[in-house]
């Protein structure tokens, strides 16, 4: 091609070569394309695409119908109720004669959790299993929904007119029966009613304190129970007073006792507890020295202790047959050594025994020190004689009307059957019971009371220490506060709230000077939940004036040094207790702290007794026995109980309900009728018992069947006090692993690279010395974490769902172990518990291992590690291979074998199977589906809530504000939860966390250990060695 100078224009623009063309031609695309957005010129191509995309997405989204059902917003939102934000209200738990000051957590207006009120000097901030479970009792479908007249539903107007009409024309004796009433306003309302109708008031307690009340009346002139302070006691001797289990005010006693048991390098001394009892109780299980005795020896043991002390004090001895017990001599030595810092308590209902106990405490100078007469308990006022007389009067027809105020004597009084038969012939009978129970089923009128969580009330459990109850939910049913009923019937103003408030204005506001304004005073009291009456003068301890010789002669007449035959001791256990809340499935499935059995009561028999009656026990199988005493027979299964005193058997009260509701009816046998009233008081310790093995096979569900710890030092590490004082590492087992470079600590060799914890690192310290095994934490966990109840059959199948369990270990029978020849025989021997075993309780939950074996084996990564040291479980991802549970060395993982919610097969799981029960569910915790694994989360929802709260307030979480449900519930503060990265936190302080040379954090506390340290899963839970205050020679 020849060269050409021809230029071909691309257009007229090039020809003219105007400046605009020159500018455009420099770009890749000479023509203008709307590539970059030009805000001034309105929407461009990209905007168009965005709008288009949004439109399509919105249109398709709008096509999907979101299934929102019944999510009704507040028309007028209450000012304090925010969705998903909990509110807390201080209140008071009152059930029968039991008391606890509580804080109630509500969500969207529903109470979902009850916790202890730390401001209460009476209950100490802890709770018990019954208190924790009480929130579920609120949502019990079996509660009465309306008042009833003669068996048919009625209205309050009808009830009121019927009551006033019938009472107006009664023309005979009218009696109000109740458990101990310790609410001053209730008492006032009752008094108004009693005056109006010239009625009498009879109080009784399921487990009577008559003996103590009567003895105190004679010894000190006051029919009351003084305030005990176990925290001041260095030596405690308990004669069958289960003050850690269910006696009087056990939540506070647990706290006080634990204070004396806590050890650190600053406090290397602890109390010593002697226990003389027949059944193995929680107190006995926690005793340093436990001596099994027969109830028929009890009085003599007390009298002999008096004589031993009297000999030292130079006081005259009382006449009593001598019992030969080295332990008793030792106890006397220790008591005398600690003098006024001693405390002797007895659970006996025999006035004479209690009088001698008073004498001992008097000789020791305990009054004014460990026993305080200025504050007396009002929670036990029952008068056995009056109650027995009432029953007889009703039978004789000399009573025309009876009102049962929140009590159920037909069931829980020994003469209940007699009373029940006579009720029909009464002209007037009324019950305020919340359900159609054994008593209310045969009364004319039922005026159901509110649940305590629906009620206004006050209480004075201890003189001068008050507390308030406030409703945390509007009454669920057409019930009415019983006090309002009484006021209505007494023709008074029925508003009980105003009644309480005006009482408080009169009684307490007027007598204080801190608050000038009544409303301020009231609000403060309501906020705190408790109020202590200021007292100016220190009350003098009343002088002991008991007639010990009379008591001694009575004791000599009743008790003998060497009893024979079989003796039966009735007791209230730590779960179902006196049976008031028997229809609560959480309590029914809570395993007894000692026997680890649930859903039944059973005759506890010693191993030797078992072979005497030809019991053939198997894996949770046993036989039913007929227990007869005083012409009454019950048929219950027998359960072997190490530590049961020879010749004695035990049986729990609170079971055998027939009209408590679907959950409780038919569970176990009623032992109340066996109690003996022949001596004028309730006697739960019965002689002349015959036990006959029927041979009928029966299965008792237990959550733990092994008795001993198999002497495994990597599980329980323990020693005695004197050794600990010499060497704080005593009792510790420190595994060493052999490597090519010699022995190393398990922590020094690892396959793991560890985790980074940039913000928090949650940990827990559990003091085996403080834990008394009461089990309040297990129910707290159940309530907090929506843990299902699986029922007896599934517990028999070993499938209870508890995330937190308390392992109970007995010491092995050392004679058998030492005499065993060969490894096989030794293993077999180790399984056998000692006759009178040492007991250790070990709360066991997910150990939140830093090197978690469960995490590596999950094929779908459903269980993973959080950046805060938590081993977290993603239910939605879980496919249920159960490999994690198998590989868990602590066996704390729980699998949803069935669908436990909305499944009629699990009707006992009331919190998930009816609309009412479901109101108790914690909305922050998923209800788990069938086929997924679950386990303790360290209450991750509480951790998150606490972190959020702190974040919203622009600060770091403060130690103590974030805590797990178990730790919060623990009355003895044995479980401490906190942030290990916060050096000031209690858990870090307890563990004495310190950085070593390599910058690693190490635990400096000699007592702290990991269970199974040698497998190096590196848990975030530490246990503190169990230390018993025993003599070195007896370790």
């Amino acid at each position: 091609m020849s060269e050409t100078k021809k230029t071909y224009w691309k257009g007229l623009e090039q020809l003219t070569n105007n400046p605009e063309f020159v500018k455009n031609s420099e770009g890749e695309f000479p023509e203008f394309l709307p590539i970059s957005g030009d805000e001034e010129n309105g929407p461009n191509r990209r905007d168009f695409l965005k709008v288009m995309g949004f439109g399509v997405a919105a249109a398709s989204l709008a096509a999907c119908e979101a299934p929102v059902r019944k999510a009704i917003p507040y028309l007028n939102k209450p000012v304090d109720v925010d969705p998903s934000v909990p509110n807390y209200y201080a209140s008071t738990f009152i059930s029968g004669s039991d008391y606890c000051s509580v804080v109630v957590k509500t969500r969207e207006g529903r109470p979902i959790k009850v916790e202890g009120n730390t401001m209460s000097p009476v209950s100490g901030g802890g709770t018990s299993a019954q208190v924790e479970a009480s929130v579920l009792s609120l949502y019990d479908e079996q509660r009465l929904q309306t008042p009833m007249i003669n068996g048919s539903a009625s209205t309050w107007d009808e009830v009121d007119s019927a009551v006033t009409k019938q009472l107006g024309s009664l023309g005979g004796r009218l009696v109000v029966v109740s458990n101990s009433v310790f609410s001053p306003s209730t008492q006032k309302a009752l008094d108004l009613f009693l005056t109006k109708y010239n009625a009498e008031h009879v109080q009784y307690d399921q487990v009577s304190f008559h003996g103590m009340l009567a003895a105190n009346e004679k010894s000190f002139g006051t029919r009351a129970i003084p305030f005990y302070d176990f925290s001041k006691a260095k030596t405690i001797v308990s004669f069958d007073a289960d003050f850690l289990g269910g006696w009087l005010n056990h939540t506070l006693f647990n706290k006080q006792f634990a204070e004396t048991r806590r050890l650190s390098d600053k406090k290397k001394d602890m109390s010593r507890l002697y226990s003389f009892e027949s059944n193995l109780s929680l107190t006995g299980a926690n005793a340093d020295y436990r001596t099994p005795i027969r109830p028929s020896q009890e009085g003599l043991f007390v009298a002999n202790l008096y004589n031993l002390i009297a000999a030292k004090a130079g006081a005259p001895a009382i006449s009593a047959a001598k019992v030969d017990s080295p332990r008793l001599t030792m106890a006397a030595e220790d008591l005398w050594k600690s003098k006024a810092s001693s405390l002797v308590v007895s659970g006996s209902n025999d006035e004479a025994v209690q009088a001698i106990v008073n004498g001992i405490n008097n000789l020791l100078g305990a009054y004014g020190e460990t026993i305080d007469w200025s504050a007396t308990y009002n929670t036990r006022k029952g008068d056995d004689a009056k109650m027995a007389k009432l029953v007889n009067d009703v039978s004789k027809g000399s009573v025309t009307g009876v009102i049962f105020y929140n009590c159920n004597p037909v069931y829980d009084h020994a003469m209940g059957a007699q009373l029940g038969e006579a009720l029909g012939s009464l002209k007037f009978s009324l019950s305020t019971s919340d359900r159609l129970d054994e008593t209310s089923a045969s009364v004319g009128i039922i005026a159901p009371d509110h649940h305590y969580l629906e009620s206004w009330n006050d209480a004075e459990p201890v003189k001068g220490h008050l507390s308030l109850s406030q409703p945390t939910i509007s009454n669920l049913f057409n019930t009415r506060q019983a006090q309002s009923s009484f006021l209505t019937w007494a023709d008074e103003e029925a508003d009980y709230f105003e009644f309480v408030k005006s009482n408080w204005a009169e009684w307490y506001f007027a007598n204080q000077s801190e608050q000038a304004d009544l409303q301020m005073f009231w609000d403060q009291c309501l906020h705190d939940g408790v109020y202590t009456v200021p007292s100016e003068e220190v009350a003098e301890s009343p002088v002991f004036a008991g007639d010990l010789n009379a008591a001694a002669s009575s004791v000599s007449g009743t008790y003998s040094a060497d009893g024979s035959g079989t003796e039966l001791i009735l007791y209230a256990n730590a779960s179902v207790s006196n049976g008031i809340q028997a229809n609560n499935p959480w309590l029914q499935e809570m395993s007894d702290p000692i026997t680890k059995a649930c859903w039944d009561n059973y005759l506890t028999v010693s191993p030797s007794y078992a072979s005497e009656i030809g019991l053939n026990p198997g894996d949770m199988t046993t036989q039913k026995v007929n227990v007869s005493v005083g012409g009454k027979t019950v048929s219950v299964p027998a359960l072997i109980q190490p530590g049961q005193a020879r010749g004695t058997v035990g049986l729990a009260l609170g079971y055998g309900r027939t009209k408590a509701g679907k959950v409780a009816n038919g569970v176990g046998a009623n032992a109340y009728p066996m109690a003996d009233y022949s001596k004028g008081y309730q006697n739960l310790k019965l002689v002349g018992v015959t036990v006959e093995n029927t041979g009928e096979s029966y299965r008792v569900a237990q959550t733990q069947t092994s008795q001993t710890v198999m002497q495994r030092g990597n599980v329980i590490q323990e020693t005695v006090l004197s050794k600990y004082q010499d060497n704080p590492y005593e009792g510790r087992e420190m595994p060493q692993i052999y490597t090519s470079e010699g022995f190393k600590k398990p922590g020094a060799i690892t396959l793991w690279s560890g985790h980074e914890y940039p913000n928090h690192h949650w940990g827990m310290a559990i003091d085996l010395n403080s834990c008394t095994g009461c089990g309040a934490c297990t129910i707290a966990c159940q309530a907090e974490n929506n843990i299902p109840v699986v029922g007896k059959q599934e517990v028999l199948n070993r499938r209870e769902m508890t995330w937190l369990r308390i392992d109970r270990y007995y010491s092995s029978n050392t004679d058998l172990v030492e005499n065993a020849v060969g490894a096989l025989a030794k293993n077999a021997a180790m399984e056998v518990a000692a006759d009178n075993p040492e007991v250790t309780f070990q709360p066991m939950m997910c150990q939140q291992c830093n090197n978690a074996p469960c995490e590596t084996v999950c094929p779908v990564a459903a269980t993973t590690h959080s950046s805060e040291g938590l081993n977290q479980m993603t239910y939605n991802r879980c496919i249920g291979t159960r490999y994690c549970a198998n590989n868990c060395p602590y066996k704390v993982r729980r699998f949803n074998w069935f669908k436990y919610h909305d499944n009629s097969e699990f009707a006992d799981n009331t919190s998930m199977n009816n609309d009412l029960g479901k109101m108790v569910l914690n909305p922050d915790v998923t209800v788990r589906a069938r086929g997924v694994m679950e386990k303790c989360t360290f209450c991750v929802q509480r951790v998150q809530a606490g972190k959020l709260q702190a974040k919203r307030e622009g600060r770091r979480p403060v130690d103590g504000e974030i805590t797990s449900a178990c730790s919060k519930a623990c009355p003895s503060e044995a479980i401490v939860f906190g942030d290990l990265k916060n050096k000031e936190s209690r858990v870090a302080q307890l563990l004495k966390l310190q950085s070593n040379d390599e910058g690693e954090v190490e635990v400096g506390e000699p007592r702290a250990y990991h269970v199974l340290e040698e497998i190096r899963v590196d848990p975030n839970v530490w246990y503190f060695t169990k230390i018993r205050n025993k003599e070195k020679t007896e370790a």
Partner: protein
Amino acid sequence: MHAESILRKPLVTGGKTVHDVSEDICKRVEDAPPMSWLLAIAVSLGVFTIGAYAVWRTLWDGIGMWGLNKTVGWAWDITNFVWWVGIGHAGTLISAILLLFRQRWRMSINRAAEAMTIFAVICAAMFPVLHMGRPWLGFYWALPLPNTFGSLWVNFNSPLLWDVFAISTYFSVSLVFWYIGLIPDFATIRDRATNKVSKAIYGALSFGWDGAAKTWSRYETVALVLAGLATPLVLSVHTIVSFDFATSVIPGWHTTIFPPYFVAGAIFSGFAMVLTLLLITRKVYKLEDYITIQHIELMNIVIIITGSIVGVAYITELFIAWYSGVEAEQYAFLNRVSGPYWWAYWSMMTCNVISPQLFWVKKIRTNLTATFIITIIVNIGMWFERFVIIVTSLHRDYLPSSWAMFYPSWADVGVYLFTFGLFFTAYLLFSKFFPVINMAEVKSIIKSTGEKIKA
């Protein structure tokens, strides 16, 4: 051409000709099913249906139908799984490893053994799915599939995931290997078929086999390649299954000896099951000339060897437990010996260690009845071995508080029966409609080792 000594005993007896082989094997396929077969399949289907009810209840109500509990999270499910996987080892071992070692006695047994392998692996695979709490999700969540749940991915640290790969690979390779071997025989049946339906079906199954020299050459190459692939799989499958236990922290599971011990055990039980089935097949189908006493004796020798390996492993475990000085480990093994499940341990010891030693006696290992009884005993023993490893290790581990017993429920038994029903139904269908002996391969040895030739 493989040369063979004239001194060696003939592998096919009875003076069979090539045509006889086709006749003997194909006739079973072509004939109407005999009464005995109909009866057998009716029983199998019955068992299958009963089992299916247990499977249904398990799926509908939950794993709670089984006897498992908080302490024993695996029992019959994984016992059965490992047992079936173990049984599924013999077929591929016979066809792949013995092919590579040029053991021509395998030729008349490998078809049935491979079929058994495949059915056993199918039975085994039922359990990992059925034992899940949520199988409707688990069956695909356990696979490394991209998902819509965010950045979730399977956990490659988990031996269960390794199982997924191991079993699926083994199953697919075994299936392909087996099917490729069947193609020339399907073609034979197709060519002999007289009715249209079977002609069409076997025609389709034979993939248009034309019998050309090139086709034969390719066939043999593929067989060799697959044998090479399958050989490591035979060893790897049970090694990985053993990792489920060996990588855990549970005393009695956490054992480095497990891989070889499991593989030996698997071959042991696999050969026992092959023998059990072949002794019946041989009798019913009158295949005495193809599956000779010599075959049975050789397989019995494999059983002695692997049984002895397993026995040594048991004793080694006990020794190492003692030698380790670890309390929990020592307890776990003493508990096996004398704990509540002592009977399971001693059943295992008797069946697996003592009973195969009887095969040292030639009279016993060449006796059909004795062989039949002992092979069944061996498989009972191998079931107990897995039960002992799984249940007795779990039921009493570190913390005595959680010690518990395991009691099987009716559904445990039912699901196990279900796999038996499945297995035997499949095997019976196979033995009726597929050639039970690899005709093509057997024909290749008629000339060199057939009785007529040698005589």
